[in-house]
């Protein structure tokens, strides 16, 4: 199939969240041709999606304002699915196919929520915590709806505060981490004044809302839709009625495209050097794919990557110190919100683990690897390509969903026609660690 449009850039940035915007701005301000491509309708990524918190808005607006004067070309609503030749990526839109070529590439593909299966988690109105927030930001009315927020990670508090400010009733926030790890998390924030300000604001926004540690969902109940949730609270079941369950277990990086492009993965993240360059020459990576560190780290890494991609290494170096400091926060996050073992026993034998193919837990248990399970049960073979069940089975069974093949997202047949190389063998993750 012919390409509807062709774009040529010196630096192409994939992903329009904070890391991608920062990379694009800094690169373009060096005077080169820069493009930024994102699969959503507008830039901002998840955290700067329209309608986010006031503070974020100001910071986001500051960065966005620099895009146009710097001459950045924005390409939204297009999802990259294939590399047709080195330096050329193909992306599909709602009804077109485009080609993007580059000299240097910055991957700022962000993160997604980790979902864990439990009985009832497939009911409509059981969503990710970030998932429900995204829906509300996209117009879903939430006023007077009762929302239980559960799972793990700082996102839970931010989501609860956001939903409440839009009129939702939040009967409880359930955090699976223990009080002692939350206390250590709090203590570690003392070295980060800006985080304390955020925390105090959250505390104000969430005044009167019950936050419970050592607590997680055991089951969601309802016929066609959700009626109630059973929680495990200090080891005892507690039932609570609600209209929505917003449940996510922290974040996992989106590393499928980096893997497809041959970037080495180490410990589950994209391996980068001091200048955010991956092991694939000329391909840089910034933000959550290199470690889950939040918006501050993403902005710094994005800038370093954008500058380094244009050869401005001196400017990039000036940000190394700030990055070291921000990375400490990433380490604290990982320590605080690690998953407790009890969550592995949440699924019952009938609980669907792979939602695309409706593969229950009982059928997966007997397999010893992700690959064997895929071949024999179709787990991970549906349209999400294991993006949901992969991280879940990694936690439940210690499987490594370690290969990616093009197209990296499902596409229309006509987008594939003429690209026999899309059918080439799997790209396997490099052996740089426990990918």
């Amino acid at each position, binding site marked *: 199939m012919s390409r509807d449009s062709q774009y040529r850039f010196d630096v192409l940035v994939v992903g329009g969240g904070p890391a991608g915007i920062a990379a694009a701005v800094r690169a373009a301000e060096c005077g080169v041709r820069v493009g930024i491509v994102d699969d959503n309708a507008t830039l901002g990524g998840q955290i700067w999606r*329209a309608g986010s918190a006031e503070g974020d808005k100001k910071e986001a607006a500051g960065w966005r304002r620099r895009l146009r004067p710097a001459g950045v070309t924005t390409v939204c609503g297009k999802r990259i699915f294939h590399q047709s030749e080195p330096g050329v990526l193909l992306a599909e839109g709602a009804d077109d196919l485009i080609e993007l070529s580059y000299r240097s590439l910055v991957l700022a593909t962000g993160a997604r929520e980790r979902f864990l299966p439990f009985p009832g988690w497939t009911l409509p109105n059981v969503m990710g915590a970030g998932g429900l927030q*995204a*829906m509300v930001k996209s117009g879903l009315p939430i006023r007077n709806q009762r929302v239980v927020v559960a799972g793990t990670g700082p996102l839970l508090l931010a989501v609860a505060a956001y939903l409440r400010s839009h009129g939702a009733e939040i009967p409880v926030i359930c955090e699976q981490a223990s009080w002692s790890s939350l206390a250590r998390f709090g203590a570690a924030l003392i070295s980060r004044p800006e985080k304390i300000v955020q925390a105090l604001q959250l505390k104000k926004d969430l005044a009167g809302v019950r936050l419970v540690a050592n607590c997680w969902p055991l089951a969601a109940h309802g016929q066609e839709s959700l009626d109630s949730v059973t929680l495990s609270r200090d080891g005892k079941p507690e039932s609570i009625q609600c209209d929505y369950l917003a449940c996510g277990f922290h974040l996992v990086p989106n590393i499928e495209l980096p893997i497809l492009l041959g970037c080495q993965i180490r410990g589950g993240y994209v391996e980068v050097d001091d200048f955010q360059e991956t092991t694939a020459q000329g391909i840089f990576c910034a933000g959550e794919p290199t470690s889950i560190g939040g918006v501050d780290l993403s902005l710094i890494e994005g800038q370093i990557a954008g500058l380094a991609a244009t050869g401005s290494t001196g400017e990039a170096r000036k940000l190394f110190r700030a990055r070291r400091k921000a990375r400490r926060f990433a380490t604290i996050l990982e320590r605080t919100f690690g998953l407790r073992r009890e969550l592995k026993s949440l699924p019952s034998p009938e609980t*669907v683990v792979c*939602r695309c193919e409706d593969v229950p837990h009982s059928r997966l248990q007997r397999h010893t690897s992700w690959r064997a399970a895929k071949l024999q049960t179709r787990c991970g073979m549906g349209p999400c390509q294991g993006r949901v069940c992969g991280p879940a089975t990694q936690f439940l069974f210690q499987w490594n969903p370690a290969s990616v093949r093009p197209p990296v997202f499902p596409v229309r047949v006509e987008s594939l026609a003429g690209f026999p190389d899309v059918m080439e063998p799997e790209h396997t993750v490099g052996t740089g660690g426990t990918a």
Partner: protein
Amino acid sequence: MPSQVTLTVNGSTVEVPAGATVAVAVAMAGQACRISTSGEPRGPLCGMGICFECRATINGNAHCRSCQILCEPGMEVETDE
């Protein structure tokens, strides 16, 4: 720009705020987005184009991720029923 957009979900008219995604319109119409391979109703999970639970037929195009597509006046959305 008008503040509301009118479209149809499974033939019924739905009015949504301008800027709303199709997934929101489906939810406001009280519909599930799809029926799973074993017959369960499903709605959006991730809200960001990853999970594919929100896919629906939009203006005749099947398998669209409704959480990433904005509503347009007169759009025709079909879900599995």
